[in-house]
């Protein structure tokens, strides 16, 4: 037992300095049509680590909040809260996501800063009282696979027809969203190359790409 005790902030600063906090997300996105999702799931079962078991399913409710940090052009701080509807006793997840960096052609994936925080279920009320406003919410339901440090989700996005009632939902597309992501400490760019190779193996079934959703709005 150490006789000297350091504050939590000191420990956190040390962790930040030694770069062990996974605060970068490497991301590729794509979609697969409902008719072809079974084929994709079969292929992922073959490619990924959790082969022997059935693919892991999930059903999450995600709420997106934002809070102004200053007058425009200052971008509002965007925060996301996610909870597992199928595992109600799990901690909720609070997530900060930074601006996505697409980089040039030589960079295989989108990179964005990310802080993932497990929290108690009071987080929604906490954010609301903090001054955040909810922008939108949705239900995401599907399958999750792992391949080393990579995570693959194949999920349907549902719009909530009634506020706060996650049972009454309707899909927003005839396709499943496919995401390939890794959360890693800053500077581990080698993982992006692994992701590119993995994405290559899913073609032409799914085209996993760097997508700039900011540009899609125009």
């Amino acid at each position, binding site marked *: *037992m*150490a*006789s*000297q*005790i*350091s*504050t*939590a*902030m000191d*420990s*956190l600063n040390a*962790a*930040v300095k030694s770069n062990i*906090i996974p*605060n970068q997300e490497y991301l590729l996105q794509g979609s697969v049509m409902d008719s072809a999702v079974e084929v994709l799931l079969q292929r992922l079962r073959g490619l990924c680590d959790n082969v022997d078991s059935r693919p892991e399913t999930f059903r999450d409710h995600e709420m997106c909040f934002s*809070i*102004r*940090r*200053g007058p425009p052009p*200052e971008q509002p*701080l965007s*925060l996301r809260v996610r909870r597992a509807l199928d595992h109600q006793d799990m901690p909720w997840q*609070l997530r*900060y996501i930074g601006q996505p960096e697409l980089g040039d052609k030589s960079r295989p994936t989108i990179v964005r800063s990310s*802080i*993932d*925080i*497990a*929290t*108690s279920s*009071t*987080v929604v*009320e*906490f954010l609301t*009282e*903090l*001054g955040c406003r909810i922008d939108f919410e949705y239900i995401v339901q599907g399958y999750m696979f792992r391949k080393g440090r990579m995570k693959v989700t194949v999920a349907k996005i549902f719009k909530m027809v009634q506020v706060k009632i996650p049972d009454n939902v309707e899909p927003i597309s005839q396709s499943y969203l496919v995401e390939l992501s890794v959360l890693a400490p800053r500077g581990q760019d080698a993982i992006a190359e692994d992701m590119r190779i993995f994405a290559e193996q899913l073609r032409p079934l799914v085209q996993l790409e760097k997508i700039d959703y900011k540009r899609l709005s125009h």
Partner: protein
Amino acid sequence: MGVTVLQQFPMSENRTGPQTIEFLTKRVVALGAVQTGQFLVDCETYQSVPQLGSPKTVHVLHNSEQPASVFAVLESGTKVVPLIADGLFDLLMLKMTSIYTSKKQTKVEAKGPRFEIGDFCVKLGSVTMSQNFKGVLVEVEYRPCVIPGSSWELMREFLQGFLGSAVPNQAPQYLQNRMNEIYQPMDTIQQYLEHFGQYRKSTSVI
């Protein structure tokens, strides 16, 4: 995790802070307590900027007893919302420095030796606010029980046994309001926050 009572130990004229801690250490050791390291509870308070509307306060606390957690308490005037998060929550607060500013001079911490004696855990904390000594807080935890109502009498006896008349016969107000509920780590944090608030208000050592 059991029920915890936080008790202020009044300072006397003829003892300094470290001397008080030493004095209490002798007493608990005499009872058969064994020192098991140090403990630390700290609290940093953030204030919303005026542009955000009605003033809000966020207290962010850490307790070495739950080292992977960060405890936040938001006071918005009408509501008090507690939040338990993992350690990265501190990084998120750093993202909000333009709307929630830290009042560094009110940063409080309670720090000192931690003892175990049978089912009890005793912590002798000297309270400092931005390096100034403010007083002594004694934390006693009775670990086998999680219902305050069932354990208060036992704890009172134990507390009075080594703190003497400083301990009232009534449970602290905070516990009285939830005598029959399951005690949680956040309750300890709330008690610290109440006491820290008193130290902040007073200008002298208490």
